[in-house]
């Protein structure tokens, strides 16, 4: 069993009219089976409404499955007594950086999680220092979050989760509200945490460029897992991705189009250097 497991996970939103009668049922997540091993970097891709955010909220026990089971660190999320342990095991970073920072000073915000789980004062300081250094925000520890850029705020939010020493971090579209620079900053930080601190990462996103470094990509559409594999495997199926209303990275698309016109280029090219090398061979 991995760090995160779901079996036949189903989640239904029930729409009601004004009298409270059931109008319809939306199946946001439909029989999803995923298994994430410790230390993996998983990216979950999907168009708007594909159910990826709903799936993410299950991994932190914010939502409970309608059917099926979710295990986090071997604990069933449906059992209430596991709730706080699960939230400590799988930390969650949300989309809007402003709406998840609680304190008026960076270091106090990072200390918020450890305070909640009853860590002694001296250890809180130690954890705050370590986490802020891990995301490269240590020199901003005494700043007000309002003065930081979006990318910096999001890194503070990640540090806030890191300070709780989770085994796994779920990031629900952490870059959706950031500019390109902020996006790069955050993705670089996530990769570093994965490689250096060996934290399991589950990154929910719809930006293709962010998933090329993942160990495994899961593509969702209409609540189902429709594709799964390494970034190279997934991105070599350009036609299929287009069907799910997802774009592939520009160079992958260029390579694909060239190949369609008859140039002997291999499938699933992910980066510009790779592409250059391949072209040079011709």
């Amino acid at each position, binding site marked *: 069993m991995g760090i995160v497991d779901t079996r036949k996970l189903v989640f239904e939103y029930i729409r009601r009219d004004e009298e409270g009668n059931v109008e319809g049922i939306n199946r946001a997540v439909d029989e999803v089976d995923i298994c994430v091993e410790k230390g993996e970097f998983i990216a979950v891709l999907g168009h708007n409404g594909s159910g990826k955010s709903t799936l993410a909220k299950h991994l*932190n026990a*914010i939502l409970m499955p309608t059917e099926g089971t979710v295990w986090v660190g071997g604990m069933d999320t449906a059992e209430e007594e596991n709730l*706080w342990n699960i*939230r*400590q095991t799988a*930390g*969650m970073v*949300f989309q*809007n950086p*402003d*709406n*998840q*920072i*609680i*304190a*008026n*000073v960076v*270091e*106090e915000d990072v*200390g*918020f*999680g*450890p*305070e*909640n*789980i*009853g*860590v*002694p*004062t001296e250890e*809180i*300081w130690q954890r*705050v220092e370590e986490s802020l250094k891990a995301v490269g925000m240590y020199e901003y520890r005494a700043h007000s*979050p*309002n003065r930081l850029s979006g990318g910096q705020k999001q890194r503070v939010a990640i540090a*806030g*989760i890191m300070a*709780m020493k989770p085994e796994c971090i779920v990031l629900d579209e952490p870059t959706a509200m950031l500019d390109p620079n902020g996006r790069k900053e955050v993705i670089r930080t996530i990769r570093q945490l994965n490689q250096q601190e060996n934290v399991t990462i589950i990154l929910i996103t719809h930006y293709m460029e962010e998933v090329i470094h993942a160990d495994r990509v899961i593509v969702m559409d209409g609540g189902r897992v429709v594709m799964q594999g390494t970034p190279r495997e997934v991105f070599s199926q350009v036609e299929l991705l287009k069907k799910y209303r997802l774009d592939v990275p520009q160079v992958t698309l260029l390579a694909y189009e060239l190949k369609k016109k008859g140039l002997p280029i291999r499938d699933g090219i992910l980066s510009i250097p790779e592409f250059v090398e391949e072209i040079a061979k011709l």
Partner: protein
Amino acid sequence: MIRDITIGQYYPVDSVIHRLDPRVKLMGTLIYIISLFLFKSFTGYLVALVFLGAVIKLSRVPLGYILRGLKAVIVLLFFTIGFNIFLTPGQVIWQAWVFKITREGLRSGAFMGIRLIFLIVGSSLMTFTTTPNHLTDGLERLLGPFKRLHMPVHEVSMMMSIALRFIPILLEETDKIMKAQSARGADFESGGLIKKAKSLVPLLVPLFVSAFRRANDLAMAMEARCYRGGEGRTKMKPLKYGRRDYIAYGMIALYLGALFLITRYLWK
């Protein structure tokens, strides 16, 4: 313009007063305010003035900056003094139509004026020298005993600090909505009071909707970080009394003692 509003108006310099434990400052301010109402002689105010002056000097907040805070209450000040001067019965000094000025009125008007000024300067000195975070922390600790009476002390102080965190964010948002509505022809400037108030509706509705959405997000983020109320929480920056704080408490006691002796026995 809207961003110029600052709450608390913390004046960031490093001084003995700034470094005091917020509980000392809260208690000191409270005692000081009560003390202003305990006596009725000018010598008492002299003692209070000396004490206040000493604290201002120690706090290193410029006097002009402090007095500027009085501008906001100048109308209230005039009303209070005016009512006292004209409406206190007693020995009439001057009379015109229905207005009478009495000796007693002048005296109590002067008292009320001094009291109000001292009260405002004294309490604003606390907000000048204490960050909002410290203030809520201090309040939480001071009101701690009321938790036994099931008063939500921790929750209230958490609400206060979250409110402080979101003031600038919501101000920025107000600015944005204002610009967006102006771009579509909304007019916030012209018209009388009622028209102006009405024109705020298209501003307030989206602002409220957004505030609720933010509150929802924040609650989710707090829960995801294991927040479950004040029970079993530890503190990253616990409040601890130091030598400085005990000395300050001593000073406050000394002030009260001096006030008592001087107003009771020396110059009645």
